[in-house]
């Protein structure tokens, strides 16, 4: 209990730090966590569907979206534990207990780590396109060779592929796209390039297989078809490694079903929570 208090006072405004947005109402809380390469906006077509029944919380990890970039610390965020600490701090600051955690991609593992450390926070874990390890390892097929991942990291080091610089929104003037004229260009999927390099390193070199195994929470795994980042073999591996977990095969293809097939994703989650 003392530890809890210490965590709370450690970060006086964790909600502001992580640009947390709450909406909806319900006696349970549903937290949505984005994956590498994006920010909380990736949940914009899914989260609203749950506002009638849950208090929904969206947030940005440090270095993404509208988070406080000055809080980025290379040492802390060199491992997923650093991210899990932030998640736990935020959940506690928001008095989340018996909540639902929805994590995309690497966020699924961050949620799992957090749930192990603080089991009272989440009683339901929804893992969307998750992967505990991206590098092939003997019989385990993560989807990439070590060389390929190292090549990715080297490439990120010396190439600016298209991350939005300085996370500053630019007003878009678009007469022929009236639905977007009110919104800011470059304000979605904001990721600081320097942070992206390091988050990529943390994500793609991570191996969370040791964190798998029985958990108290109910676990749902959403597996996409044709997902290069989290292939079917990984989904199956996860399901076997987490006894009692449910694996749902989506029709959606690619790595972000919450964007490419939001209705299907929403339905699958609703059926479970």
């Amino acid at each position, binding site marked *: 209990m003392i530890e809890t208090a210490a965590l709370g006072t450690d970060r006086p405004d964790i909600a502001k730090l992580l640009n947390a947005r709450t909406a909806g109402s319900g006696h349970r809380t549903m937290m949505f966590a984005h994956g590498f390469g994006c920010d909380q906006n990736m949940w914009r077509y899914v989260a609203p569907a749950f506002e009638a029944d849950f208090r929904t919380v969206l947030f940005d990890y440090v270095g993404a979206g509208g988070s406080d970039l000055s809080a980025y610390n290379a040492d802390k965020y060199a491992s997923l534990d650093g991210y899990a600490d932030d998640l736990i701090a935020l959940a506690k600051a928001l008095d989340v207990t018996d909540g639902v955690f929805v994590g995309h991609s690497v966020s699924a593992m961050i949620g799992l780590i957090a749930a192990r450390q603080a089991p009272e926070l989440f009683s339901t874990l929804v893992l969307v396109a998750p992967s505990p390890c991206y590098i092939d390892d003997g019989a385990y097929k993560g989807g990439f060779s070590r060389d390929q991942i190292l090549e*990715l990291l080297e490439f990120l080091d010396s190439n600016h592929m298209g991350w939005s610089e300085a996370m500053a929104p630019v007003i878009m003037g678009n007469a022929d796209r009236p639905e977007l004229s009110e919104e800011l260009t470059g304000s979605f999927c904001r990721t600081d390039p320097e942070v992206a390099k390091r988050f990529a390193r943390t994500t793609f070199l991570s191996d969370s297989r040791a964190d798998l195994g029985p958990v108290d929470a109910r676990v749902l795994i959403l597996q996409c078809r044709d997902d290069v980042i989290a292939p079917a073999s990984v989904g199956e591996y996860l399901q076997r490694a987490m006894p009692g977990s449910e694996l749902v095969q989506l029709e959606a293809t690619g790595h972000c079903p919450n964007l490419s097939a939001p209705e299907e994703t929403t339905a699958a989650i609703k059926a479970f929570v």
Partner: protein
Amino acid sequence: MSETAGRSVASTSLGPIDFEDVFEAAPCGYVLADKDGRVSRANQTLAGWTGKTALELVGKRFSDLLPVTGKIFYETHFAPTLHMEGSFSEVALELVRADGTRSPILVNAAVVRHGGDIAQIRYTIFLAEERRLYERGLLDARNKAQETIVSERAESELREQFIAVLGHDLRNPLASISSGIHMLDKETLSERGKKVIGLMGGSVVRAAALIDNVLDFARGRLGGGITLDRDAAEPLEPVLRQVVAELRSIAPGRTITANYKLDRPISCDRVRIGQLLSNLLGNALTHGAQDEPVNIDASASHDELIIAVSNGGQPIPSQTLERLFQPFFRGEDRVKHGLGLGLHIASEIAKAHGGTLVARSDTTATTFIFAMPLAE
């Protein structure tokens, strides 16, 4: 639109457009894909770049054209951005050719919606080999420059800390010598003895001024800045007279004329203004014509304090004039003594007082003018 021999041709008031040809032979690659990024059509230009036929590309995902790095970027950032923003431009990727080699490319993509759903994704691709080489060159140069800055900054800090310590260490023995000189001065001395004491005193003055300048410089660079201790109650004139007297004692053969019109209270740091005058005067004596007088004019009007020091001799060239106030600048004639700090410190003192220090030089005279605003 009219169909002519199976090709789409539109007649506009500006003339017909063969859209089929415009698509196929565009000076860029053009890919049309479904909402999942699966290629429905690729143009000839792109096919040529990939080393495959346009038909072979149909059904592949756009990300299949990219190496692993590009695939990961596509799935984690490119595609999500397309879904939410509707477009994504200037993405720097690589195209994998049929023979396994890679070409740097730049990609723009935009979605077409029917109702709310994505009906089509359109990609334009440009080769960017030259651009990429240029960017790499710039990045390398920037990294090297940054490394140089870091190491030079470290060296510079060490040097300045050394100077600061040295300056402090030198003041002590100098203070001893100075009090020793004052004590001796009270003794009965021969003519020669008095002369020697005079010369020793002059040397101490010079040395002390040098140490002051050096310490100020080191402190300024290390972030201390020139601190002022303003006092309008104490008169400035006696301090200036003292400075002139000290420098007269160092340069006995020289003519130094001084005019003072300081009949009002002046809010300034007297010691600093004295230091400024000392530096300007020392400079004039060292670099001016040795057989011409040095003139000092100090006057305070209702809104301005002006101290001007002028000497004769060769005019200072304009390129030199520009750089005079930089630290360690010693001009063409390095034989003349000095570290090159005096003018820099003087200009810093001027700035600290909210004033200016300018230099003018022609065949008649070289004049340094310090001007500082005064409250009414």
